[in-house]
């Protein structure tokens, strides 16, 4: 039962990473690409971590996994903001249809 849920979470996470990568490659400008990338990082990694934490041997291992997710959330969100702001200040215009 646990194996089933863990597989489900891991597959869902992989799907987000796939979508994020496709978005990174296919989206028209920097801002939309950042959007795709942070989705993969935040949600995809969160699902992966959940799937892995279910398999963890002890609570402390699961705790470390969750901590990794927290750090990536923090770094990912901040860096995405900093890159977008840097680009905007340098005059990179958002894409318009």
């Amino acid at each position, binding site marked *: 039962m646990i194996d089933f849920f863990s597989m489900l979470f891991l597959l869902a996470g992989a799907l987000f990473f796939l979508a994020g990568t496709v978005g990174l490659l296919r989206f028209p400008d920097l801002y939309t690409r950042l959007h795709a990338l942070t989705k993969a990082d935040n949600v995809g990694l969160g699902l992966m971590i959940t799937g892995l934490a279910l398999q963890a041997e002890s609570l402390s291992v699961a705790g470390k996994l969750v901590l990794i997710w927290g*750090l990536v959330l*923090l770094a990912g969100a*901040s860096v995405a*903001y*900093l890159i977008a*702001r840097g680009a905007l200040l340098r005059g990179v215009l958002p894409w318009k249809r």
Partner: protein
Amino acid sequence: MEALDFALGLFDILLVFLVLSLAWLVMSSEDLFRAIVLFVAFGLLMALVWVRLEAPDIALAEAAIGAGLTGALMMAALDRLSSVKPIQKVAASAQRKQLSLSSKVLPLIALVLIVLGLGYALLSLPEIADGLTPNVKENMAQSGVKNPVTAVLLNFRGYDTLLEMVVLLLALLSVWSLGGERKLSPRSTNPILGSLCRVLVPVLILVSCYLLWVGADAPGGAFQAGSVLGAAGVLLLLSGWHVEQKYLLWPLRFILILGSGVFIIMAAVLLLIQGGLLTYPVAQAGWMILLLESAATLSIGATLAALFLGGVPKSRVDQ
């Protein structure tokens, strides 16, 4: 199990292919910024390679130093190169036109010879080599730690690590003797960067302490801990952390030489008492290694952050 082995085999082949092609792209990239980004990606994949070779200690060091801090150092260098870059580009394109046939063929011959030589050396190795592993295993009980890598680095071949500390110090001294003074950047007004710093720096310090402590019986140790500390320093420098002038002179220099200093003093004392360089008495080995590693961690962290600054630091207030 067989399916897992097959998948891992596929993963390994993909990894080798990616590492080689990234290495090629780094070397052939005209744009230096692109080359640095690719180099960081290369470092991260190298860390994965070390994980696959079951060397987690080196994987940690590679990820932290090879991919993380080296990338930051190269970005800092690139920033300062921006004034000379156009000249370099002109020179490079002029050079390409002049390449004659012999200057293309000779390196190729040399390359083929090197590849053949390396290939021969690799194939002539015995298939199963124990190396020094049995020796290390036999003496683990006397080392004072439970992680064989730490035992080798700090005990059996402690002088290697001592010399590495000195090399790091020498690198910083060369940078300082080249670069003149550098003012700390003004405090960043960016609220996100500020709050990221406030949350992340304490966590990084905690992680650094953890890596230092866990090095005694699991992957970790002074270099990994020091590079995490160095990363915290880089983050603080980027966000314009305020350091008073009085801490920049002697306190900073004290921390920079602390690692090498404690190492040398320890080696000298042990040489007198025990009659051998860094031969610890068995009962005291544990805390002596911890002391050495703590000092080394502080020095490595401070040195890496100072290298990122790239010159003798000078407070912006005291001008």
